[in-house]
């Protein structure tokens, strides 16, 4: 293996993959980006006739865009907050306490992943219909909350398990109470991973489209749901392009933070790899 490195052969396979993936993955997104900053782009011209921010002003002046941004942010905040409140103590219990049925309850969070998601959503919607939760804010909160459970429990459990128990014991030996130990020793060590889980669940909820569409529409209109209606009914191409760029912001933030987590092998293991 070593001598191939010394020869410094040109990595044709790598170049082929890099070019193909750039065309297939980056190019379509660049096209959308270009449309967002285009004032005029009429058909046979390969490049836009006029660049500009005209459609940013027009898109941002639309009331439906602002109301759906507010709706998306408040839904994602509420879901993430509730999820953290109920899941983090549960994760701590799974990581540190012994109680009857611990294993089976831990694995019960996988249940939702054994079924095709939209089918499950329809089954849940059947129940929500009887409870009059269809078309309500709290109906969407509930359905999105269920979607965050696995991440918000499994990742923090791993974080709590990775905390050095000897440091906790040492702190206890010098007289720290259980809350002091948790606050000063456990939380700082588990914190970054838990923060990543919280960020993932916020971003995941922000982009959750299917539950919001099935349970919430037409009363609850999130940004992705608005985007669907732009694609289906909006003749002005730039509105959709500007909305796409706006819509991508949370993903971009997640990209900055989560790249390292995802490149590591443990992430793929979490998906059964």
């Amino acid at each position: 293996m070593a001598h191939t490195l010394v020869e410094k052969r040109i990595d044709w396979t790598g170049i082929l993959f890099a070019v193909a993936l750039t065309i297939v993955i980056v190019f379509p997104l660049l096209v959308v980006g270009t449309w967002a900053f285009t004032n005029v782009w009429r058909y046979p011209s390969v490049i836009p006739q006029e660049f500009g921010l005209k459609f940013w002003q027009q898109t941002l002046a639309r009331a439906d865009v602002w109301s759906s941004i507010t709706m998306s942010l408040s839904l994602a905040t509420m879901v993430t907050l509730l999820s953290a409140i109920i899941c983090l103590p549960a994760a701590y219990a799974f990581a540190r306490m012994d109680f009857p049925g611990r294993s089976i309850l831990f694995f019960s969070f996988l249940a939702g992943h054994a079924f095709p998601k939209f089918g499950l959503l329809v089954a849940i919607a059947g129940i929500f219909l009887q409870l009059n939760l269809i078309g309500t804010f709290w109906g969407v909160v509930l359905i999105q909350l269920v979607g965050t459970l696995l991440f918000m429990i499994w990742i923090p459990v791993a974080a709590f398990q990775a905390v050095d128990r000897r440091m906790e014991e040492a702190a206890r030996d010098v007289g720290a109470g259980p809350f002091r130990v948790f606050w000063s020793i456990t939380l700082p060590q588990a914190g970054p991973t838990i923060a990543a889980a919280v960020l993932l669940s916020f971003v995941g909820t922000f982009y959750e489209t299917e539950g919001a569409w099935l349970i919430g529409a037409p009363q609850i209109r999130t940004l992705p749901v608005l985007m669907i209606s732009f694609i289906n009914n909006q003749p002005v191409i730039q509105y959709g392009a500007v909305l796409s760029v706006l819509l991508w912001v949370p993903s971009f933030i997640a990209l900055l933070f989560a790249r390292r987590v995802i490149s590591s092998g443990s992430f793929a293991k979490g998906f059964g790899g």
Partner: protein
Amino acid sequence: MSLSATSDIVGTKTRRGLTGLLLVAIPVFLVVWMIIWPIISAIGRTIWLPNDGGTGRSFSLETYKFFFTDQYSLNNLSVTLWTTGICALLLVLICLPIALYLRFAKGRLAAYVQGLAIFPMFVPSIILSYAIIRVLGPNGTVDLLLNSVGLPHIRSPYLTPWGPVIGLVWDNIPLTVLILLSGLGNVSNQSIEAARDVGAGRLAVLWHIILPRISNSILVAVSFTVLGIFSAFTLPYVLGPAAPEMMGPFMQRTFRDLNDPTNAITQAVIAFCFCIVFGLFYVRSVAKNRNP
């Protein structure tokens, strides 16, 4: 004395056990109420239909009989099976070479390829749909480029069954690559070098050494794909044809637009049945990798 001490320890232990149960109670309750109960209830509601007189329910497979005799439903089911099969096949054919390359290559080019292969994870599928329409749709960028060199328009895949295929493959590349790559991590360099030493060519190494060792990962990747694609909603809804439609949009339309929850739930139960093998296999593999 010793007896009371023991009972004291036991008492603390059960109290701690109770605290643990209380702490996990709400998430577990949500799983039972929002996942397990809906599935049981879905099966119950579709085989115990309300009587004509309006009093009580009785056993009937009427809605299932309707689904499997209705040509429109059957077309939707077959386009769903076709899309799922094609996507799973394409994903393995596309992602296996990428994963093989990434397993053995090092350096900046490999890092760039890996970054690109994972990137779609950070592109929400709704933005992807829009990008595909702008590039491959009528008068899209590909048409522009072809037109500028004097070639005729493409037959756009937008609003044909190939539209969702392109979108779903694009969307599923990252996790398929990651799962396969994680499987390839189990193939040791020594075993490959040993095979090379006895004169095995590249294909022989792939076929006899690598593939048998990662077959499980391929199955996991395929199961994950099948589960995700069989009832995919957003991409087929936006990119696919109005008829036949995939099960996701079909269920949504039956539930909301036709206001017919019983038939929508029947379709959901049928989707569960088609995916149950893949679902159980997938969940089992995830669980095997994780200790509680």
